[in-house]
């Protein structure tokens, strides 16, 4: 407990919260050279009462998300170095056929990331876990590198290392009363030990984080949720086992439970009960708590159904009348709308950082990443998917956060399809033509809150026209959240033309006397172009990794319009505003402009029929933009394409979008115009053309040369990542982005299977492929190429394997499929000379 006046007057950063994340953060900041750090917590050390203190502390390395896998791996390595990791192994058991299928998928994913994993028969599970009733399960997946950690000890060690280096003052028992902000920047943190002047306040407060963020006027998309856990003991079998754990941790995933030995007890945890949200303001104080503020009273009724299922799996061990439920809590944990942590600077306030919604398994990794971001470095792990700036305003509302947390809670151990859609809090953002789309039977997927047609049921008539070419998928899993209509829409677009609703684009305008300097600094491509040019460019980070990938229209001397994907719009806007020179201004025009795409060989005929302006190839060249009149509306037409066809993006004031859609629709129908969904725009059209996508191929880990996107010349002007890019160009790439075709889709049982993404690419003999930097080869994007009659995969291959015509293998759901390297580099498989786009 501190008294007023105990706090230092100034600090380089005030880190709030001494759980695993805060401790890790001060440790990494100290390593990165920060001095005069302060760590504040209202609770006592070493267990101030947050979620770290009641965690079950086990780590399964397997994750489908590469970022979550990498954060977990980094954290595990840090725990190992601190000497607090005990390897126990872990087994996920299956009670259903669907789960066995899922476990095969998980083992294949494990192979992609290089995690040891194997499928076990019930008997083999029984050998490792002798107290488990084999008759209840159909098998299991064994992850031998699963382990447990002492997270409190790890936090203490890291905190004390920072203290010993003389860089850190620790204020335990110190309440934060406020964060003062001046001119949009953090100025000071007021605490019960006095006010600390600082430029940086870091929120590492787990379930309390939204409350602390609000002190600075920011909203943090996180909610506390209850996770129930009981501890049963003494377990006779465990009486003589050494240390904390001797048997593998069992995840009984079909019942959303886990069983984990903890000394003489068995901990049984559940994600099966009803979602129980506890608002941050209702978390009791330390003094009011019977146990700790995050260990709320156990609500037995919620857990009772789980007891029977636990007993079923471990009847003798848990059914022992002498073993009692010695500890039972409703433990509070943090959840976010998308299940990812919230890392980095919050967009509302400069110097207000978040390292929140991190669990034990990714805590030290998150600490390192945020310390690196605060130091202006490119983080070791690519954490753009956890960017604190990623959320749109609606995604940070209490209603949205709670609804998605509730929906996500019971999916924690669920079988979640990679394309599975959220059901709650929809619709939020609707396009001006949504009514038309509904009439056309649009099947809506959600991106960044936007409802986007993925395909149109009304196009089932088009399917008949292309019967035999639709590449139907016989396995239910492969065809879930998919339709052969997508492929019909694709073929119809290639034969005539298609109208695509692209309202979800984020539209940012950079203006002012320094606008050119701003876009030049951000962009690899030359932006000092004539007004009316459209430039496709990457944005890089300082190390030459991808930060964004988008198009920029120069609309005038001092005006540039950036069009980027909805999913990354908020992050991209934050990146821009963090790099604006004086005299350049950023405006988010997303809600002012809708975009309608018109592409296909008939696109010009259709457009020409609704405008008097010149849209001929000579009059309106590729890569240019201009205002034209369409049916009494002024439209900013931009002649580019992400689907490899002649056509335009029509940028329309949002309230006039419906009129333009109707005008083009009426003119186009006689020409064979069909509506096409994002299934075509984002996948089939793009893959046939070898177009890369940010977040899939284009990530922080890869470079322009590796992605096959090197341009002949490097512009003279400086830009972010230029030095790194020049170095990358000078050396041969150690990986090459390739397009692969699947030679046989026949699985072991003869069913034709179509992989969905993330799968490991292997040598013909089944060995993992990794490049000289240790990066594994896995499928980054995948989909039908209906014009080619092929299922296309993209993957980075080690340079030695990136040889066109060579045969490799891809593992999908435990089976291996032969694939051929069709393209090493960026040459499109469809229309390789790009005649259609430039016709």
């Amino acid at each position, binding site marked *: 407990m501190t008294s007023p006046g105990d706090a230092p007057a100034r600090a380089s950063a005030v880190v709030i919260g001494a759980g695993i994340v805060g401790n890790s953060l001060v440790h990494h900041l100290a390593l990165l050279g920060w001095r005069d750090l302060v760590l504040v917590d209202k609770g006592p050390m070493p267990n101030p009462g947050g979620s770290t203190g009641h965690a079950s502390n086990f780590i399964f390395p397997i994750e489908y998300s590469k970022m979550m896998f990498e954060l977990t791996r980094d954290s595990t390595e840090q725990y190992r170095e601190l000497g607090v990791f005990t390897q126990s192994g872990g087994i996920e058991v299956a009670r259903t056929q669907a789960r066995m299928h899922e476990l095969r998928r998980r083992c294949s994913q494990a192979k992609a990331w290089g995690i040891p994993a194997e499928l076990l028969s019930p008997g083999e599970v029984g050998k490792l876990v002798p107290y488990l009733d084999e008759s209840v399960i159909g098998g299991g997946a064994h992850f031998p590198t699963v382990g447990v950690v002492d997270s409190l000890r790890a936090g203490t060690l890291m905190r004390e290392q920072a203290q010993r280096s003389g860089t850190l003052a620790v204020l335990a028992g110190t309440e934060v009363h406020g964060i003062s902000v001046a001119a949009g920047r953090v100025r000071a943190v007021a605490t019960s030990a006095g006010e600390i002047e600082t430029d940086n306040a870091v929120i590492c407060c787990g379930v309390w984080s939204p409350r602390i963020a609000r002190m600075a006027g920011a909203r943090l998309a996180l909610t506390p949720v209850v996770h129930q856990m009981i501890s049963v003991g003494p377990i006779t079998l465990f009486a003589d086992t050494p240390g904390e754990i001797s048997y593998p941790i069992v995840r009984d995933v079909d019942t959303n439970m886990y069983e984990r030995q903890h000394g003489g007890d068995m901990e049984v945890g559940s994600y099966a009960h009803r979602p129980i949200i506890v608002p941050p303001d209702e978390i*009791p104080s330390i003094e009011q*708590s019977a146990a700790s503020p995050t260990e709320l009273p156990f609500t037995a009724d919620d857990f009772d159904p789980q*007891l029977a299922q636990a*007993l079923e799996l471990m009847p003798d061990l848990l059914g022992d*009348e002498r073993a009692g*439920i010695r500890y039972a809590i409703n433990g509070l944990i943090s959840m976010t709308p998308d299940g990812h942590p919230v890392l980095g600077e919050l967009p509302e306030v400069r110097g207000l950082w978040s390292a929140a919604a991190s669990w034990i398994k990714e805590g030290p990794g998150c600490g390192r990443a945020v310390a690196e971001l605060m130091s202006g470095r490119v983080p070791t792990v690519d954490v753009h998917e956890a960017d604190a700036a990623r959320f749109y305003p609606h995604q940070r509302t209490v209603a949205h956060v709670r609804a998605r947390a509730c929906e996500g809670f019971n999916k924690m151990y669920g079988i979640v399809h990679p394309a599975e859609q959220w059901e709650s809090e929809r619709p939020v953002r609707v396009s001006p033509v949504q009514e038309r789309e509904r009439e056309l039977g649009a099947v809506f997927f959600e991106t960044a809150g936007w409802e986007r047609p993925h395909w149109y049921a009304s196009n089932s008539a088009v399917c008949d026209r292309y019967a035999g070419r639709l590449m139907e998928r016989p396995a239910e899993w492969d065809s879930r959240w998919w339709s052969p209509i997508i492929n019909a829409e694709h073929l119809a677009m290639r034969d005539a033309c298609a109208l695509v609703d692209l309202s979800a684009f984020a539209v940012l305008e950079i203006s002012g006397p320094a606008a050119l300097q701003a876009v030049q600094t951000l962009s690899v491509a030359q932006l000092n172009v004539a007004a009316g040019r459209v430039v496709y460019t990457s944005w890089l980070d300082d190390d030459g990794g991808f930060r964004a990938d988008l198009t920029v229209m120069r609309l005038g001397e001092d005006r540039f319009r950036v069009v980027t994907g909805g999913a990354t719009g908020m992050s991209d806007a934050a990146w821009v505003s963090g790099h604006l020179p004086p005299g350049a201004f950023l405006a988010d025009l997303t809600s002012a402009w809708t975009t309608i795409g018109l592409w296909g060989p008939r696109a010009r005929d259709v457009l020409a029929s609704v405008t008097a302006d010149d849209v001929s190839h000579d009059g309106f060249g590729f890569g240019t933009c201009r205002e034209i009149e369409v049916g009494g509306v002024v439209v900013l037409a931009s002649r580019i394409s992400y689907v490899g066809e002649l056509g335009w993006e029509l940028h329309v004031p949002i309230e006039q979008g419906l009129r333009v859609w109707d005008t083009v629709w009426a003119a186009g129908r006689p020409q064979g115009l069909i509506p096409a969904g994002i299934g075509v725009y984002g996948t089939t059209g793009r893959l046939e053309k070898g177009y890369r996508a940010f977040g899939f191929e284009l990530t922080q880990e890869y470079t322009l040369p590796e992605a096959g996107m090197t341009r002949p010349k490097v512009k003279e002007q400086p830009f972010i990542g230029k030095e790194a890019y020049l170095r990358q160009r000078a050396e041969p790439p150690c990986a090459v982005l390739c397009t692969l075709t699947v030679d046989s889709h026949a699985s072991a049982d003869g069913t034709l299977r179509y992989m969905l993404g993330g799968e490991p690419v292997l040598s013909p003999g089944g060995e993992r492929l990794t490049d000289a930097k240790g990066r594994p080869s896995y499928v980054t994007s995948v989909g039908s190429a209906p014009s080619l009659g092929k299922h296309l995969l993209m993957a980075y291959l080690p340079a030695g394997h990136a040889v066109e015509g060579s045969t490799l293998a891809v593992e999908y759901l435990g089976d291996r499929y032969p694939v051929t390297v069709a393209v090493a580099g960026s040459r499109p498989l469809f229309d390789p000379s790009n005649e259609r786009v430039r016709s």
Partner: protein
Amino acid sequence: MDILVCVKRVPTVGGKIAVTPDGQEVDTRMSGFTISPHEECAVEEAVQITERLGGTVSVLTLGPEAAIDQLRDALALGAGRAVLLETDGREFGPAATAAAIAAEVRSHGYDLVLLGNEASDTGDYQVGIRLAHALGWPVATGIKNLTTSADGAVARREYRGTEESYELPLPAVITVKEGINLPRYPSLPGRLRAKRAPVERSAPAWQPEGLRKQALRVPAVAGHQAVILGRGVDAVPELLRVLGELGVL
């Protein structure tokens, strides 16, 4: 031997008790409910007696429907039957409580009624004595050691450094204190049995009594102060001195 154990649903409290804004209740939104440690021991004592001598353990509570949670907790520990004397939310005074329990005891018939020495919320110290008086049974209170046979019970307690021992014929009422035994934890099968067990219910009438709750107030407590004796081995001499002062060395 047929034993009745009486328990009361009370708020769980941490170091600092919060009171609802109207001052009428302890704020339990984030703390929940439990039974007192005395009563946990009463349940354990009853279960141990029947494990030794045979018979049944019934558990009774007088309270709102939500008090079924506390009945199930006791069922999970080995009680075989549960009785809810359901109230309408109004607090029963000790006289009305004893009267309601007495009615249940008369109608069912027990050899022994165990209670906690006092409720941990109202602390009236009356229900056991009033119950025995209403039934005309012998009563011993504050018991920390109990020997029971089919013929009777020997109940012992400490009072100002001396041990008092009472021999009681059965049926009798005995109120026990924490420390008489070490209560067990519920087993998983016990918890499942508890969940399935029926609860017998009746609703005694509320009666006004002399005492009426005005409002709750959290009294000020003297603040605690931690004193750091030193760090590492340098702290050892001072630590030894303090331990010596406390008389634990």
